[in-house]
């Protein structure tokens, strides 16, 4: 951690602030732009102008947009995330936090599966380069990746739950056998991406001089591959973790909707459609913060574990 790295970190982190503020303005504006507002949805058939006005006043929707924005941001900095209108009388915190925890666990296990499978598959494909096995392995994982998750889910549900009857459908807590299928369906399509990057990385490393040296001094093939090739080829994979987050969140949206899992993906879809202003805003802001910080973090981590990378200096 030299002075350069510290300065770079500070600059990257400072840069996150305007990015996130811009995002918040854009999202706030877009969400409020819609002609319908939560009050219309709340009242529905029993719409009564007097009640509607009172409700709008209660939630502050009768104020000018910029004022609403400043109120919202002010509350946000004081830890008040606002109230949900779709789940009446619940705050956003009460609605979102338990669901977020469910989704985080599912996403975490799915990611472990993606990397635990993707890395060996990539190494194997790289070593099998030149034979028919390499394109076959990568190709079949790519095929899985090409199927949209909302097509994959009904087929997998039918095959494993209805035909074979080995898993149950329906949500029964995160730690139940019912979750095996959703976690696999979320994790497996990502294997292709990880495997391809790992393959490219291994191919680069295999050509290095120190690998030739290791072979020349008579080390066993397995030793060379595991300790010399794979370890060094793993370095670039760190930056992929951050980049794979958005895809994971997107996949969870369909997954939770189709498996009836009470997670954040399902909630965000419903909140957008309702609309539930504060919930949508919080979800977009939270995930933006997460993505931006994750990318900074993994970039930095990459620099720490591989000192050859000089962050911020190569850029003009």
């Amino acid at each position, binding site marked *: 951690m030299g002075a350069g790295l510290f300065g770079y970190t500070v600059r990257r982190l400072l*840069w996150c602030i305007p*990015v*996130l503020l*811009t*995002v918040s303005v854009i*999202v706030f504006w*877009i*969400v409020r*732009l*819609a*002609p*319908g507002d939560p009050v219309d949805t709340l009242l529905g058939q029993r719409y009564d102008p007097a009640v509607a006005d009172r409700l709008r006043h209660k939630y502050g929707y009768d104020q000018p947009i910029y004022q609403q924005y400043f109120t919202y941001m002010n509350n946000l900095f004081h830890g008040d995330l606002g109230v949900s209108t779709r789940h009446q009388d619940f705050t956003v915190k009460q609605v979102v936090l338990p669901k977020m925890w469910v989704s985080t666990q599912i996403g975490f296990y799915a990611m472990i599966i993606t990397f635990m499978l993707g890395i060996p598959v990539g190494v194997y494909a790289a070593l099998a*380069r*030149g034979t028919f096995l390499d*394109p076959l392995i*990568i*190709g079949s994982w*790519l*095929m899985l*990746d*090409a*199927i*949209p998750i*909302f*097509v994959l*889910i*009904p*087929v997998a*549900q*039918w095959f494993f*739950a*209805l035909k074979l009857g080995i898993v149950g*459908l329906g949500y029964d807590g995160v730690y139940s056998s019912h979750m095996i299928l959703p976690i696999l369906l979320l994790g497996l399509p990502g294997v292709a991406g990880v495997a391809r990057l790992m393959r*490219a990385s291994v*191919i680069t490393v295999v*050509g290095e001089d120190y690998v030739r040296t290791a072979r020349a001094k008579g080390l066993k093939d397995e030793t060379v591959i595991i300790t010399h090739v794979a370890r060094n080829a793993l370095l670039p994979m760190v930056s992929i973790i951050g980049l794979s987050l*958005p895809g994971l*969140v*997107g996949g969870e*949206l*369909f997954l939770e909707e*189709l498996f009836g899992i009470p997670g954040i993906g399902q909630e*965000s*879809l419903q909140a*957008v*459609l309702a*609309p539930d202003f504060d919930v*949508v805003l919080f*979800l*977009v802001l939270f*995930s*933006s913060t997460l*993505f*931006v910080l994750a*990318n900074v973090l993994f970039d930095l981590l990459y620099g720490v574990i591989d000192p050859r990378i000089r962050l911020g200096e190569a850029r*003009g």
Partner: protein
Amino acid sequence: MNAATVAEYYPGGELAPPQRWVFLRRLFGKKIATVALMYLLIFYGAGIVGPFVAPHDPNKQELTVQARLQGPSQDHLFGTDALGRDLFSRVLSSARTTIIFTAIVILTGEFLVGLGLGLLAGYRGGRTDTAIMRTGEVLAGIPTLILMLAIAASFRQRINDVSFWLQDHTWLGQDAKLWVKFTIVIGVTVPFSWVGTSRIIRGQVLSIRESTYVLAAEAMGASTWRILWYHLLPGILPIFIVGLSSSMAGIAGAEVALSYLGLGIDPPAASFGTLIGGAGGVRTFQDHPHLLIASALPVVLFFFAWNLLGDALVDVFEPRTNRR
């Protein structure tokens, strides 16, 4: 030795003779790429010509028990859907939807915005570069799908107002509503699709900006646009095409996902997203598997073929990265 490239005999690189036909020959030398290309030709042919020669009207409903949910037969190649519409004809129309959508996004988002801004950022550098790349960073930091949903959901509320106005005031007539929906889906896809392209293009421009022929052109007083168009663009086109074919599945997939959620192109107009949505659900799949298979398989193969083609193009254009 078959991997030896012209560039290896002319290490200067800039002296190498045009390689256009070499690329094509190398591409067709790959069996997988040829198969993928053939499938794409069929898909595009079906999408462009198909709707005119379709055996049935894709929107004609037939709500009798016998006509609904038929399995594949000679009259209905892919069977019929829950409203008795011929699924084969609807798949053909969906292919057309995908083709129109991707063509517009590529022309606007990738070519105009992505390539244009990438060239500008790389060549101009300085503040222009910072502004463009920072904007890209903002967009890349946003959870795309949720925001796309939010935008699409907000704008859809106004569909009726706008489309009725267009119906009365322009030549669009009955199609106005469909075009408004197209505009919305394209409008939410384009802002997020250009960032990756611009980054790649910018990197490439940075590397060839300093080459002697560009410096010579500058010394002779060529305008910025002339340099961009005649001197930088040809050097960038290969990497642009490679990037394009790899991102094609993602672009087409955005429309399918939005339509699946009911926020994109929706019935009666056909899209693979709505077809899959209509066939979805595990119970429906159990009883009528032809619905999902017929509506998902063509588009899944479309994604797959573009990905394979993208991989093959990487190999063809940059043989060194993959076979050293």
